[in-house]
């Protein structure tokens, strides 16, 4: 795994303690996992995507990522309805490792409660959280 200072953290995203990120644009939110998450998992071999139309709930599992070491649940950063999924991950799960913030996005949701973003960590807080974890 990379050291803490080498972790890529993006400023325009909100994070969960389980290392998912969400990018909010209007009432839509794009969800993925952070650089720290992909680097802890190791090579991702399979992504179990949610179904379009599924309602997901904040901090409850809605997808899973399988690596050579483990299957890990992906928790929803915010509640909402799945409107788009990244189909490319079915054939190229390694996109999660290669590009966790861009090509490796997992799903887009229609956010049902904007206030839930107060339960998430902005850039500076997540950075501190990671620094603690990697101490």
């Amino acid at each position, binding site marked *: 795994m990379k050291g803490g200072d080498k972790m890529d953290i993006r400023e325009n995203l909100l994070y969960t303690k389980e290392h998912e990120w969400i990018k909010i644009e209007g009432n839509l939110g794009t969800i993925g996992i952070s650089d720290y998450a992909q680097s802890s998992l190791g090579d991702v071999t*399979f992504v*179990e995507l949610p179904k379009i139309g599924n309602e997901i709930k904040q901090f409850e599992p809605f997808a899973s990522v*399988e*690596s*050579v*070491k*483990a*299957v890990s*649940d992906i928790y929803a950063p915010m509640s909402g309805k799945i409107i788009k999924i990244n189909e490319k991950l079915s054939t190229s799960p390694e996109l999660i490792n290669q590009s966790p913030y861009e090509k490796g996005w997992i799903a887009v949701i229609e956010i049902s409660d904007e206030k839930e973003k107060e339960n998430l960590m902005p850039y500076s807080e997540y950075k501190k959280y990671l620094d603690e974890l990697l101490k």
Partner: protein
Amino acid sequence: MNYIPHTKEEVKEMLKTIGVHSVEDLFSDINEELRAKSFNLPKGKSEFEVKEYLEKLSQKNNLSLISFLGGGFYDHYIPAVVDALVSRSEFYTAYTPYQSECSQGTLQTIYEYQTAICALTDMEVANASLYDGGTSLFEGLMMAYRIKGRNKFIIDGSLNPIYQKMLFTYTENLPFEIVRTPYHIGQVEREKIYQNLDEETAAVILQNPNFFGTIDDYTDIVEHAHSVGALVIISVYPISLGLIKTPGEMGADIVTGEGQSLGIPLSFGGPYLGFLACKEEFVRKMPGRIVGATVDKEGKRGFVLTLQVREQHIRRQKATSNICTNSALCALRALIFLSVLGKNGFIELSKLNYDKSEFAKRVFKEISGIDVLNTPTFNEFTIRLPMDANEIVKKMTKKGFVPGLPLGKFFKDMKNYLLITVTEKRKKEEILKFAEELNNAINL
């Protein structure tokens, strides 16, 4: 002899290390009243006494009876090579092949077993085996639940009643709705299935041949089920697949079955073999162990346990299934059995079963008072007697035959019905003699 291989000194030392005074102290968390005071076990016996006891017990078996009994477990011939190979210590004493570096032989046999099951059922992937036909059918049901996220199931009432009981028992505390269609000796009554089939249904569960021996082609049911997004699980009798349409050809999604007929001796309670195969798209929802082929760093072919991260030793409570083992030795028996027969030999075996059973049906039809039920069958069929089938069993046993399974044991209104199986082991003379004694038992 004490079966726990620790000396008193070692036990003492261990207790001291963890800071307790006696073994009894280890149970202090359990309320004293709830602890067993005695297990009522008899005194230990010497090797000689045990041997004598077991020999006496085994003499209660009647090995000379000629069997026409089936109903899920079958009297097929097991070539000597099966026992000879399977009892080699490399196989017999091998443990779970977690460490692929030193388990290539075991892994290869499991991989080949999976390949054989796929070839037999015409399915894309098979797991490394389960305990028996009933548990594999239950695991198939759970798979459908995981795949579909729906909790309604339709099971055909003509499924093996033991399997039905297992499905209901295992799912008793789960939020499932299981609709059972009425049992029926003939082919599945489609409308009974279709009137329950809807978009809440996870799977339709069928058996071929059904418990009464009737064979069917479920292609149309598969199409109907798929049109509402439901899966179809078919439990099969492997020996029949050399002759009748395979579940893969019918489009089944999950296939399960009892593998006892593939070289595993009949014994009360097993050990037996459950097989489970499915379409490749469902492989990650498959329970249990799976062996995959790969290449090592020098490019040489090798085998490993694959997709293990779904299993409970890694994924803990979120594992695909609680099944974390397989019946490797029984699976190996099945593999050797199938390999020895080969493709043509297997088809021949299948045909022999069918032909002998058809011959028996023709002979029995001549006996007055007997009604051989007129449905297409493989090697097992149902007859109606003019009296309680249990009476016939009693009479026929005295004449040296196990005549079949009295269906009243499972179905209240079928007291006079007997399920008869004719495998390749039954000779023409035996069938004719059986018919003669049956005629005497009924008409004399």
